[in-house]
């Protein structure tokens, strides 16, 4: 590891934190842009920069989730649930401090897992059947639907809308047009980034216009580095959710977003008496998603390096970068070029350390953003949102989509529909569609055989009953049964 590589990891991590934090900029976008101008570089410096941006960006998404209630990335959706209420109480510094430390812990657990358990976890992931991926997708949408809104029905509606939006365009298997209404513009589908920026950037900006004249909360940032007793208190939960994050991150097609949501749900179930209720600023609500999404970063490398299957969008781009440099990611990469594997592991470890340093030292300047007058901040957020949407494909069509989804998301928020499930639905649409079709084709188009196969497989059965349990536990039926038993 030379000084120049070390500098590139540090630069990437620093830039990643701000890329992840600025609404409208995504890690995926930054890494894909990086490919174009690291094309002529050697593979190691190119990877060093990308890994830094990836690690910093996943963490950076939490900043705007806490300060502005706008998750910088989907992986920070769950962080906003308790992070923003903390900022509203003037505890943004404490929230970012604990998030930085637990992100480091989560990242460290993920890296250790990658180094030690990569072959074992990859072996576990490869046993997943298409029906398991399908059930995992349903589980993710159901979880976010039940967690982020006032009603499960509205959450399911929003999730279904997202899956529907994700299926707009040409079906990749049969080239059949879906929801295109004969227009050319819809054949390529709806840009996910435009939907995300519209729903989270524009709609939040419009919502905040309602409170334009409310006094800005001065963020008390007396203590940024969390106390050891506070960290120690949440360490057991952090270790559990780091493990969840690593395993979920290792499943191809899933990533930090699902890992964070599942970890958040896990925290709500295992934390009996939080000091502050979940959704009102519970520290556990920050620890769980942030350990999980940073652990998922390393988890995502496991199938990429051992199977050649990307764990998420960023590792998919990195596979492209490796191809450009004449490398073939897959089982043989670890055999033929073990240095590459250890270079990635050590780069992740260094990026994780830089994330801790930059995260804890840069908060005071960053927190100043929320102390800016909203009348100045909101137009800037809206401008960045437009720029971000335009930058996806240099097309104004995406800007119009973003505006349309922004206004639609604004009304959805006003009338109590959660927006998280829409985004998750769009992300998971392809995974759900592909794996449903693979599963039902392998079971000869028979629902009965599919159900039988699900119940016969321990893994599928666990996932299936998890879906049923989460659905039932959020319905009035559950409450009725338990009231009856209590009586």
């Amino acid at each position, binding site marked *: 590891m030379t000084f120049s590589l070390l500098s590139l990891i540090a630069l990437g991590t620093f830039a990643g934190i701000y890329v992840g934090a600025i609404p409208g900029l995504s890690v995926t976008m930054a890494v894909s842009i990086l490919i174009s101008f690291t094309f002529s570089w050697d593979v190691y410096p190119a990877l060093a920069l990308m890994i830094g941006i990836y690690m910093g960006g996943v963490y950076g998404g939490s900043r705007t989730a806490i300060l502005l209630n706008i998750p910088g990335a989907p992986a920070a959706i769950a962080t906003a649930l308790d992070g923003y209420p903390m900022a509203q109480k003037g505890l943004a510094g404490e929230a970012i401090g604990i998030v930085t430390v637990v992100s480091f812990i989560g990242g460290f657990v993920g890296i250790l897992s990658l180094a030690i358990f990569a072959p074992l976890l990859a072996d576990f992931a490869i046993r997943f059947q298409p029906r398991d991926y399908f059930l995992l997708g349903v589980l993710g949408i159901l979880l976010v639907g039940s967690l982020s809104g006032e009603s499960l029905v509205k959450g*399911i509606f929003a999730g279904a809308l997202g899956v529907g939006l994700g299926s707009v365009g040409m079906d990749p298997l049969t080239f059949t047009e879906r*929801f295109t209404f004969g227009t050319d513009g819809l054949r390529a589908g709806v840009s996910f980034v435009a939907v995300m920026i519209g729903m989270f950037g524009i709609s939040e900006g419009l919502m905040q216009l309602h409170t334009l004249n409310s006094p800005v909360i001065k963020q008390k940032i007396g203590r940024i580095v969390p106390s050891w007793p506070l960290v120690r208190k949440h360490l057991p939960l952090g270790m559990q959710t780091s493990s969840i994050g690593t395993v979920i991150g290792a499943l191809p097609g899933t990533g930090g977003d699902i890992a964070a949501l599942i970890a958040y749900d896990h925290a709500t179930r295992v934390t009996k008496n939080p000091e502050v209720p979940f959704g009102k600023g519970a520290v556990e609500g920050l620890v769980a998603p942030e350990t999980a999404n940073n652990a998922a970063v390393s988890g995502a490398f496991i199938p990429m390096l051992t199977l050649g299957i990307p764990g998420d969008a960023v590792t998919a781009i990195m596979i492209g970068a490796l191809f450009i440099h004449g490398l073939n990611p897959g089982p043989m990469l670890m055999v033929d070029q073990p240095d590459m594997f250890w270079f990635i592991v050590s780069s992740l470890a260094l990026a994780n350390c830089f994330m801790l340093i930059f995260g804890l030292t840069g908060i005071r300047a960053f927190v100043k953003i929320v102390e800016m007058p909203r009348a100045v901040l909101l137009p800037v957020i809206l*401008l960045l949102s437009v720029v971000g949407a335009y930058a996806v494909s240099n097309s104004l069509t995406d800007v*119009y989509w973003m505006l349309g989804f922004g206004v639609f998301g604004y009304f959805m928020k006003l009338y109590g529909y959660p927006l998280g499930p829409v985004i998750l639905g769009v992300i998971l649409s392809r995974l759900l569609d592909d794996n449903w079709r693979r599963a039902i084709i392998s079971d000869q188009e028979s629902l009965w055989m599919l159900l039988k196969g699900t119940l016969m497989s321990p893994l599928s059965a666990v996932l299936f009953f998890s879906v049923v349990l989460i659905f039932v536990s959020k319905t009035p039926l559950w409450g009725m049964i338990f009231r009856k038993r209590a009586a």
Partner: protein
Amino acid sequence: MQTKQPRRPGELVFNLAMVLGSLFLLWSAYGISGFEALSAPGAIPLVTTAVMVVCGALILRDTLRKSATTAEKLERDILPLPVIVTILAILAYALALKPLGFLPTSFLFLTGLIGYLRGGSLLRAAIQSLLIVALIYLVFRIVFTVLMPPGIVPEAEIIAWVKSLFAGGGT
């Protein structure tokens, strides 16, 4: 378990639009491949839109059960003037972005919107906007090399001039 919150202005219309929109999408999803097969390209769209119709109907039923008496007003609590002005400003920004270019459009957008939302001196809003646009341009156009419409600004010449400055400094 239900909270008897009053119905918000426009809530009934919005939820009704959701049901009607979902029905239209269900019909469109049926048009993809009908009930051809469980693995057909229209299978997942058909299920998701059917779920939307059922959920939309349940939401509409709950909305109808809510009390219509509320202290909220549509023009104050749902669509206040700053929201309408901001939506129109973003639309105007998108329309002017290509012909005028990123730099002048962004400057006008920020100056106008900051001036309107904050009130007070337009000159102060213009100075703030100038600094913000310069910073965004530096990060997006120069660092991330994101292509923005140049419009009426001779951007290529400006970038060539900046590069020549650095080239000159290097020799």
